[in-house]
């Protein structure tokens, strides 16, 4: 792997940047691997990277039906934070946030992590109580969290109107200063490049169409580019997880829904933090290009179409203007959708499956981008050792049988 540096940048400027090497090899699938990861989103690529780096397992392929990072990784609004309520989630997301903080150096690629602070607004008494409780819970878990008064909110984000006569008055907010946003593509590319450098094959345009199981054990995969034998397989397919589980003969408590996002025309810097409001249902930040980046709600029906209904976007614009009337004449440029895998308790599933040697990492739903490094870290551990890492042990598939759910609907920060 050619390391990027200021010197390399200057050197490559000499021929107008025409000789940069490809980030990863265009690998053709081999007949057999020790471990195969299905899905080259951020989570799958991070898993492959940590399998190689932390566990020395490099006989690995990552299979992707489309292009790398073209799933939810490349479609999300990139909000990163770790201020979840319950201990299980707090520890998992905080581990991820700590990895984010060193990720550009680790991957030798700028993932443009911008810790600009994430505000979660409170608009009613219940929001206030819930927010204060969450701040306390976060602090007990060593996570930075602050409760801001309306005046402090105004100081932190001047375009928020804190007039108490508004329909949804701002009564305060939680603030996680270490939260922020990152460049989604760069995360996928960075993990892909670093995994490739350690010998991992990244195979694009290779859809898994069947899972071979013999005597309850995984033996390989059927793909659009031929059969591949594998000793261990990790499924990291987000919205398509139920389809893959079905190929292996088990069911998941997961439903697939479209989740849409949109960007405005670029404007001058006006919003230098992330603002989220559950009651009004807004999450918005401003990109480095100047566009406002906003997420909408999920469509209520099941879908694999990567597009949602227009009324959801309309509703989102109404919510944005309720919070920020200043944006009333802003034009929207693009909308798009991803297919999110929603779990009944709004927490992911990371661990073993009923099939030996087959592992699953799914159910991140509307909020898994922030967890990308941590998810890859613990899933690599689970695959390499056959046992969950202490951080993902509570997120097992059989919690739906035991009843040990991790209900994070509140900390989803906007209700989906």
């Amino acid at each position, binding site marked *: 792997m050619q390391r990027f540096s200021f010197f390399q940048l200057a050197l490559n400027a000499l021929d107008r940047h025409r000789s940069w090497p490809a980030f990863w090899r265009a690998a053709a699938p081999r007949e057999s691997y020790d471990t195969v990861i299905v899905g080259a989103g951020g989570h799958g690529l991070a898993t492959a990277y940590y399998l190689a780096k932390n566990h020395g397992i490099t006989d690995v392929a990552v299979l992707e039906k489309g292009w790398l990072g073209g799933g939810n990784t490349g479609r999300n609004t990139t909000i990163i934070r770790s201020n979840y309520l319950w201990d299980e989630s707090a520890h998992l997301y905080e581990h991820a946030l700590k990895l984010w903080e060193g990720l550009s150096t680790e991957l030798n690629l700028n993932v443009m992590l911008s810790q600009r602070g994430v505000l979660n607004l409170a608009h009613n008494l219940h929001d206030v109580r819930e927010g204060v409780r969450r701040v306390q819970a976060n602090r007990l878990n060593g996570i930075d969290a602050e409760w801001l008064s309306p005046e402090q909110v105004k100081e932190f984000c001047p375009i928020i109107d804190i007039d108490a006569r508004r329909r949804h008055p701002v009564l305060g907010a939680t603030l996680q200063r270490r939260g922020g946003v990152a460049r989604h593509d760069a995360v996928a590319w960075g993990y892909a490049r670093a995994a490739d450098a350690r010998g991992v094959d990244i195979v694009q345009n290779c859809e898994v169409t069947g899972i071979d199981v013999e005597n309850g054990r995984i033996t390989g995969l059927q793909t659009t580019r031929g059969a591949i034998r594998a000793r261990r397989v990790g499924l990291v397919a987000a919205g*398509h997880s*139920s*389809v893959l589980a079905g190929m292996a003969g088990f*069911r*998941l*408590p*997961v*439903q*697939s829904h479209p989740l849409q996002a949109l960007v405005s025309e670029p404007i001058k810097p006006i919003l230098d933090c992330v603002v989220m409001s559950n009651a009004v249902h807004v999450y918005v930040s401003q990109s480095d290009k100047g566009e406002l980046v906003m997420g909408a709600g999920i469509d*209520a*029906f*099941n*879908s*694999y*179409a990567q597009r949602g*209904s*227009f*009324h959801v976007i309309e509703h989102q614009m109404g919510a944005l203007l309720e919070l920020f009337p200043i944006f009333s004449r802003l034009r929207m440029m693009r909308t798009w959708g991803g297919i999110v895998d929603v779990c*009944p308790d709004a927490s992911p599933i990371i661990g073993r499956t009923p099939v030996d040697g087959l592992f699953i990492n799914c159910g991140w739903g509307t909020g898994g981008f922030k967890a990308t490094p941590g998810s890859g870290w613990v899933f690599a551990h689970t695959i390499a050792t056959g046992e969950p890492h202490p951080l993902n042990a509570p997120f097992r598939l059989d919690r*739906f*049988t*035991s009843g040990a759910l991790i209900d994070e609907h509140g900390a989803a920060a906007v209700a989906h």
Partner: protein
Amino acid sequence: MLLIPCPWCGRREETEFANGGEAHIARPADPAALSQEEWAAYVFLRDNPKGWMRERWFHAHGCRRWFNLVRHTVTHEIAAAYPPGAPPPPLPGEAA
């Protein structure tokens, strides 16, 4: 945006309706006899097909009645609408 054919009111905009998820899930006849696994399956496991699906809808801003649709989860095409209690129709392409 879907145009949903309510069996009682005819085609109406999606915004008048609420989605109720997978159809034809019967409450267990003898709940006390269920194992943990069976309870988990009844409460949490739902089909999530990429293709045709039978699902429940509620005409919330209309006649306020429940009914079922056969809808494709990739094309969003609607093949049938039928009242609750009616036997599940075959999925398109499936033998009757």
